[in-house]
């Protein structure tokens, strides 16, 4: 049982990391950014490229070097996210929301198949593998690498939360989501704040990509698709637009899947997770921590 929980938590922390960026972008632009999962893929590949080009180091690769690669990949992915926003989303800011959704799908295709052109269709194997020893806690086998990764994920999320929530930027983001015109009248540079949200959200996805690459070992150009859907699901469970909700949602989804697999078998896992989601939403229509919007008439 503890193993099941642990497995769920571990996967969930990846979902959370990706969902957080998803929720952030949603929170500010009401955009379901279908390209977000592909930024996770992009991050994994940037990390891969960095690691292979410094292959001299890889033999003696220290955790520090890996962290540097992680940070560089985050920056790279963040910039890519900003570029996508600039090219594909900004021109459509005042268009119907669904138009944006379609460009997001377009961006997703372009990223996936652009990467396929560059890196080929075959999976690539990460030059570094985190693995190694594990400890036993309450009957669960917990990898040291897993602990490190969860630690990094938590650190990233906490930093982000502090950056965004405490400062006026967080409020500005919510304000932009509610009324960009009014936000501009308050002196908010909407373009900059949105670019920042994309940078941070994409960087987090990129971090998750590098972490997944170095832990699981195999990356491919379509790896972002499923996790993108999961992140979307997690963000909704948590209450879309809510940062804490996204993190919580990620963990909850991880646990749901873990238990679903255990009790119903792998083939029914997604049915279980989605059925739960649907039932849950009919009871709590705005997710775990979603804003209760009391609408005035």
């Amino acid at each position, binding site marked *: 049982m503890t193993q099941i929980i642990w497995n769920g938590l571990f996967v969930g922390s990846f979902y959370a990391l990706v969902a957080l960026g998803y929720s952030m972008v949603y929170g500010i632009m009401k955009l379901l950014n279908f390209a977000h999962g592909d930024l996770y893929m992009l991050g994994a590949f940037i990390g891969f490229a960095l690691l292979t080009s410094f292959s001299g180091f890889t033999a003696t690769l220290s955790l520090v070097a890996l962290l540097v690669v992680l940070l560089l990949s985050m920056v790279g992915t963040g910039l890519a996210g900003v570029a996508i926003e600039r090219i594909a989303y900004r021109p459509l800011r005042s268009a119907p929301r669904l138009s944006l959704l379609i460009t997001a799908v377009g961006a997703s295709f372009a990223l996936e198949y652009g990467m396929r052109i560059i890196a080929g269709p075959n999976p690539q194997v990460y030059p570094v593998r985190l693995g190694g020893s594990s400890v036993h806690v309450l009957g669960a086998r917990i990898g040291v690498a897993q602990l490190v990764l969860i630690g990094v994920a938590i650190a990233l999320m906490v930093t982000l939360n502090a950056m965004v929530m405490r400062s006026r930027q967080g409020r500005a983001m919510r304000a932009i989501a509610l009324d960009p015109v009014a936000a501009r009248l308050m002196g908010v540079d909407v373009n900059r704040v949105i670019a920042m949200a994309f940078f941070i959200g994409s960087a987090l996805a990129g971090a998750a990509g590098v972490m997944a690459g170095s832990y699981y070992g195999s990356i491919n150009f379509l790896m972002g698709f499923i996790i993108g859907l999961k992140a979307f699901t997690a963000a909704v469970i948590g209450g879309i637009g809510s940062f804490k909700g996204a993190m919580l949602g990620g963990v909850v989804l991880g646990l749901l899947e873990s238990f679903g697999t255990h009790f119903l078998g792998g083939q029914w896992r997604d049915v279980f997770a989605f059925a739960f989601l649907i039932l849950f939403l009919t009871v709590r229509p705005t997710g775990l921590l979603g804003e*209760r919007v*009391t*609408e005035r*008439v």
Partner: protein
Amino acid sequence: MSALLDVADLHLAFGGVKAVDGLSFQVHEAEIVSVIGPNGAGKTSAFNCITGFYRATSGAITIAGTDVTRLRPSAVAARGVSRTFQNVRLFGDLPVLDNVRAGTHLWLRQNVFDALLHTPRYRRTEQVATDEAHRWLDFVGLRADRTGPARALPYGEQRRVEIARALARHPKLLLLDEPAAGLNHNEKLELLELIRRIRDLGIAIVLIEHDMGLVMEVSQRVVVLNFGREIADGSPEAVRRDPAVIEAYLGSDDEPAAETGDHEPATATGDGERPTETRDGERVAETGDGEPSGEIDREAGADA
């Protein structure tokens, strides 16, 4: 004669805020009743309760003898109630005519097969809807283009369309929430005349308005709310002289410009007493801590 609308001891609370607190009043057929009161007195909230958008915490609302307290808005509308909103709520991207056709939704008899097969009944009803839309747009005096999107109209025209839409419903009772807000002087005069013509059709009107000129001129009766409770109910003259009303709402004023439709701003009150400061402490309640208990109810009886 029994009342067309009977609001009895209505309460509505949001968390600690008592938006409506024991409101009772009646409206009879073909009567024009104004509801006035300070900002935040609960006027709009009362409208929302009557029309089913908010579910009253307690109390009863009866329309022509039937209890509508727990009905969803469309069901209340089906009982002959029509309304406008404090902020114009048109179907912005739809043609003006379609906006008004919305009023015909409840009484136009047309089913899916009529639509699919374009039966004579389909043709007839569609023409009726169009004619009806024109009829009411003529009635409210809309000058602008009727085939373009409602969003493109100037504000004053949008207000007219909203009223036309409400009228096309063929209501027995029409609730107007600050219809004069944002209108200029001439438009207010036109509005005043329009309200009278509506009443002459036999429709009862409840009017929320801050423009005292308009209120005093057009109303048969004025209900004054403060802190969700009625503090006066009577003829315009009586209400205007009521010290409680002056204190809470009108201000110690020289003379409201009754016939101009423009309210006279109160002269500066020497002691700087503002309505916001006259609240009694008991009501300075905490808000925002809990969820509103007076749930916004848009699903009541949904799957009926």
